[in-house]
């Protein structure tokens, strides 16, 4: 009965979604729409749409080759600060909830191949993660994927060594990285005109040392995401299921 109801509701949903997509305008139609050019605050009409603006001027304005990174860290950096805060809140919630749960799970020792192999692989995983978040303004990737790769390296260590324990010092990394993000933003407020504004010369686009504060902020985000996800995984490992 439940299955039949599920199939009927899902079928109706599928058909209505396809009908909706049939009427949905694609983005190249959208950018010919007049609404795309009007400023909603003062009603003035620009001669180029928002995506066109980003693609044309990102390289000169921010020095970052990767337009997505430029939007995430520079144009909408305040939004990213909120996003990092959401991740921090979730990590806090997880550690609070799991501190109420029963501790002391018993684990068998992992086999020899996993133990020795993870020792060999761990430096390369950490190096790849660091590469991804340092090159965030040049290549696809950035602080969030890089931090996740770093956390996956520590997860491998936890699987191989059941007694592997992250000390509370990992929260120092997290706090230091979060503080660095806010301090860079405040320096922008002091040295330039607004919060999270670039105050370092942008340099040549395409070089590793370029794009002003974007690599610094992405390195801070990489550390923060890596330590937060490692802490979440570490908490979950302790609990008796």
């Amino acid at each position: 009965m439940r299955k039949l109801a599920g199939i009927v509701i899902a079928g109706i949903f599928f058909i209505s979604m396809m009908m909706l997509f049939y009427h949905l305008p694609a983005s190249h139609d959208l950018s010919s729409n007049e609404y795309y050019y009007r400023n909603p605050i003062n009603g003035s009409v620009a001669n180029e749409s928002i995506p066109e603006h980003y693609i044309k001027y990102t390289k000169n304005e921010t020095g970052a080759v990767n337009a997505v990174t430029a939007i995430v860290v520079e144009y909408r950096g305040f939004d990213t600060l909120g996003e990092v805060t959401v991740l921090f809140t979730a990590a806090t919630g997880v550690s609070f909830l799991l501190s109420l749960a029963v501790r002391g799970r018993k684990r068998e020792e992992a086999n020899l191949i996993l133990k020795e192999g993870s020792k060999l692989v761990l430096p390369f995983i950490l190096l790849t993660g660091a590469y991804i978040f340092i090159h965030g303004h040049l290549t696809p990737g950035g602080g969030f994927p890089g931090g996740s790769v770093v956390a996956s390296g520590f997860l491998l260590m936890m699987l191989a060594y059941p007694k592997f324990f992250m000390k509370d010092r990992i929260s120092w990394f997290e706090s230091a990285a979060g503080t660095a993000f806010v301090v860079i933003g405040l320096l922008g407020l002091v040295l330039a005109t607004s919060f999270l504004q670039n105050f370092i010369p942008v340099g040549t686009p395409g070089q590793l040392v370029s794009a002003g504060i974007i690599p610094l902020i992405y390195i801070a985000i990489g550390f923060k995401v890596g330590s937060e996800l490692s802490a979440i995984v570490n908490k979950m490992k302790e609990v008796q299921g």
Partner: protein
Amino acid sequence: MIWAMYFAVAVLLTAGLYGVITKKNLMKVFISLSIMETGVNLLLITIGYIPGGTAPIENGNFAKYVDPVPQALVLTAIVIGVSVTALALSLLIMYHSKAGTLEYKEGMKW
């Protein structure tokens, strides 16, 4: 191309909705929600797709780039999704230690 992506979005959303409606195991419900979330992310990317465009990394070799704004939005959405999933799973661990099962029970107090 764009129709295949819209079709994939509809399939993912429908599969997630079916799982949420029919499954009683809360773990499977959370997996279904994650599948739906993937569908929504794919929909946002698809709306920003421009035929013939490449990834918006401007090294001067390409003439056309896709819209970078939805991609930045989806980057945010993925991170939020991960944190919500982590929180849901830790709630599920608490539920399992109190109820002894992952199934949804009517009128359970915990």
